[in-house]
């Protein structure tokens, strides 16, 4: 089957308080296994999902934040973070996980997966998608 579609997963919820963030990540990894063109957006409280330094030892819940680092190996390397959402929360890109991928078209050079975009830019990216799944 060569019916490849552009999938965008939009993440708008903080991790741990609800199951949305973890469910989204699972669905993204499943979707990627079907070799679709997958991208992700982190908007509103969704930006908290990819804060670095998460340690869930004391709350007895699985810390799934290291899993985001595996996305690059599944060719999920277009990760958009809305600038306005970061700013509203007093965050910068330095507060986020350092997500990388190896670019097979550029001698496997290691590149950043995360791209901070404005609301306007993200609106255009969303408009280009064929399937949008919101969590």
């Amino acid at each position, binding site marked *: 089957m060569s019916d490849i579609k552009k999938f965008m997963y939009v993440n708008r919820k*903080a991790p741990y*308080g609800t199951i949305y963030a973890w469910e989204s990540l699972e669905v993204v990894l499943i979707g990627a296994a079907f070799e679709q063109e997958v991208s992700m957006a982190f908007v509103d409280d969704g930006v908290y999902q990819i804060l670095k330094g998460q340690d*869930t030892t004391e709350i007895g819940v699985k810390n799934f934040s290291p899993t985001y680092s595996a996305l690059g190996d599944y060719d999920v390397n277009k990760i958009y973070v809305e600038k306005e959402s970061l700013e509203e*929360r*007093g965050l910068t890109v330095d507060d986020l996980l350092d997500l990388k991928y190896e670019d097979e078209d550029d001698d496997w050079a290691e590149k950043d997966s995360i791209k901070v975009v404005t609301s306007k830019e993200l609106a255009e990216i969303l408009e280009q998608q064929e399937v949008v799944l919101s969590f």
Partner: protein
Amino acid sequence: MSTLHTINKSPFDRASLQSCLRLAADGNAILLFEDGVYGAMKGSTVAELVEKALSNKTIYVLGPDMKARGVDESKLIDGIKVVDYKGFVELTVENDKVNAWV
């Protein structure tokens, strides 16, 4: 009557923190836990509201929930106190009642 107010929702997801700060009496204690811990961070659009409340209220944040979410103590608004589970229990005992802003 001393009251402990608890907040477990992000201030950007719903207005529990904002409503609590508007309606809690001077001298009351407020504990931020679960997704409520995001309200304790410096530099956000709600930080000014929280800083103002600190002049006449005591604000606590639950350490284990901060750590889980990658919120480092260095990111907290000055004056907010970190408590552990034992501290949470003590706050519920010290106060006459608990008002949970779910």
